[in-house]
């Protein structure tokens, strides 16, 4: 995963709250391998009628080149399916702005280079009113600039460093192999019951 510091692109509004992961990608698409691309399935049932035809008024269909999505509270609540993030990333999104995010969704986003930018509810409303618009997102400064407005977003330090560095956790953790092995052996010695009883 490549790290990044700033992003410029078009922001569009999806003025809904509780956009859950079942809406972001319905379960029936989850058996597809990632290599097939998930972008087309993003918000599938909201974007398309029962006959599969796209609703031209839906923001994603009206502005297909957008890379920043602005939504209302509790975006990405629901399941742990990382496919919800794959769908956003494969559809070209790099930033989602909302007053709050599902915890697991936010973690999954950061693991895929997608920024979950948490912005005050009031500010989000002003951004929604101003969209669609060109925006600049500065990860290190923690700001989103849209026209005249610059607003701050919240992000944990751990998420920020990871997005900027494009860290791959498995590589980082494998460097800790000795500490992990020592911990394991200490735990096994002190709490042997923590290992599942062998089945005879």
């Amino acid at each position, binding site marked *: 995963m490549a790290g990044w510091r700033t992003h410029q692109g078009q922001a569009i509004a999806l003025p809904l709250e509780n956009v859950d992961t079942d809406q972001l990608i319905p379960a029936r698409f989850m058996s597809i391998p990632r290599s097939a691309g998930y972008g087309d399935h993003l918000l599938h049932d909201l974007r398309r009628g*029962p006959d599969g035809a796209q609703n031209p008024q839906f923001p994603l269909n009206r502005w297909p080149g957008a890379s920043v999505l602005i939504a209302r509270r509790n975006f990405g609540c629901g399941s742990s399916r990382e496919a919800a993030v794959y769908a956003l990333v494969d559809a070209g999104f790099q930033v989602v702005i909302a007053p709050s995010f599902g915890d697991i969704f936010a973690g999954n986003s950061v693991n895929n280079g997608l920024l979950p930018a948490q912005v005050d509810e009031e500010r989000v409303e002003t951004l929604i009113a101003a969209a669609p618009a060109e925006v600049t997102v500065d990860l290190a400064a923690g700001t989103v600039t849209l026209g005249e407005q610059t607003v701050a977003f919240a992000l944990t330090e751990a998420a920020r460093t990871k997005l900027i560095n494009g860290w791959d956790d498995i590589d980082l953790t494998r460097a800790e192999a000795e500490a992990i092995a020592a911990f394991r052996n200490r735990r096994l010695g002190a709490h042997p019951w923590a290992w599942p009883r062998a089945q005879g």
Partner: protein
Amino acid sequence: MKHPKTLLDKLWTAHEIRRRADGASLLWVDRHLVHEGSHHGFAKLAARGLRVAEPDLTFAVVDHYAPVRDRSHIADPDIARMIRTLEDNAAAHGLRLFGLRDPAQGIVHVLGPEQGLTLPGLLMVCGDSHTSTHGALGALAFGIGATEVAHVLATQTVWQVKPRSMRITVEGRLAPGVSAKDIALNWISRLGTDGARGHAVEYAGRTIRDLTVEGRLTLCNLSIEGGARFGMVAPDAVVMDYLQDRPYAPVGAERDRALEDWGRLITDADAVFDREARFDAADIAPTVTWGTSPEQALPIGATLPDPDRLPAGKAGAARAALDYMGLSPGRPIAGTPVDQVFLGSCTNARIEDLRMAAAVLAGRRARVPGLVSPGSALVRAQAEQEGLDRVFTEAGLEWAQAGCSLCVGMNGETVAPGKRCASSTNRNFRGRQGRGARTHLMSPMMVAAAAVTGELTDARDLLKGRM
């Protein structure tokens, strides 16, 4: 004097290998549960040519795509492939697989506690948001995404920033006909689906201590619907008894040592939580959802909200939800006709859930069709021993096998567009049970009552003289 600690503090410290300057902790994972949906994680592992680090701590379960009717032949090639991929990955890495034909097969969050894989004091992860369920036994358990699944497979560890702590205290006695599901829907409707976001919830108080392990599992299961990735209850004698003689649980001298360790897993008297919420059991009535988010829930005696009278922030979402659900504002919730019922899922398909539903259904006929899918093959066997299966089938409901089934609609079972389902599951999201499906979440007793009358009904009326 030592600094008083919460249960969360104790569990976290016991698993922390180290903490980075940016606040992320590297945590040791005692149990990793995988299912068909973990295929992305295995694919990431294979792409790097890595092996599962601790196959003895990794358990594979077929549940999300498991057929619950005929298992002899799976017609849909995608479903067959999802199950085969898990079987292949389990075989390739030497993992214990609870496959379709295993006598202990079941939904991962039912199977874990039942097998004694879930224990107090363990750190458990699974690529599924309802992993919070296992906290009911005093474990630190949370759902993870596919990148994290690959990481756990490769290293048996996970990076996490410690959540804030929150205590939900419930005092008093639940009335007959009211159960753990109602406690959960009640607090989520009051605090919102992001009410506990960023927090680990510890449930405490008399009402919680009076719950069986099954009830606690239901409550912790639903924590994620209130935004909390973690839910937990301090383990007590009820849990210790429950774990006796479970296949993977410790025995003999190891059990003695375990009991000693588990006894310390309580929040110290003066420990301070980042947040506290209190509820009185006497205020909790059988609760049902009316909308498309678990927070859109009300007591069965209430009337549907009128969006015109809601604050501006809530009105739009309520209007859209009522529209999707095909409901009119201001009408009583009770009496809403349903097309079908579903009794199942990791929330409410344990033996106690089936018993409660059967108490309502015994000697009665269902007016609408419905599926009863026990949480595991062992629950199914137990229910048959108790004759519960006959109560369901004599009522006209279908007695199926164990799996996620209609909770998520991955195994081919779905609710048809526009149809209304009274469901013991945990998510009423748009399209969760199938595109256009209308889901009302409620307890097993309420599902049974809806089956009997063909409409949303107060189960207490049908339980008179029975409980």
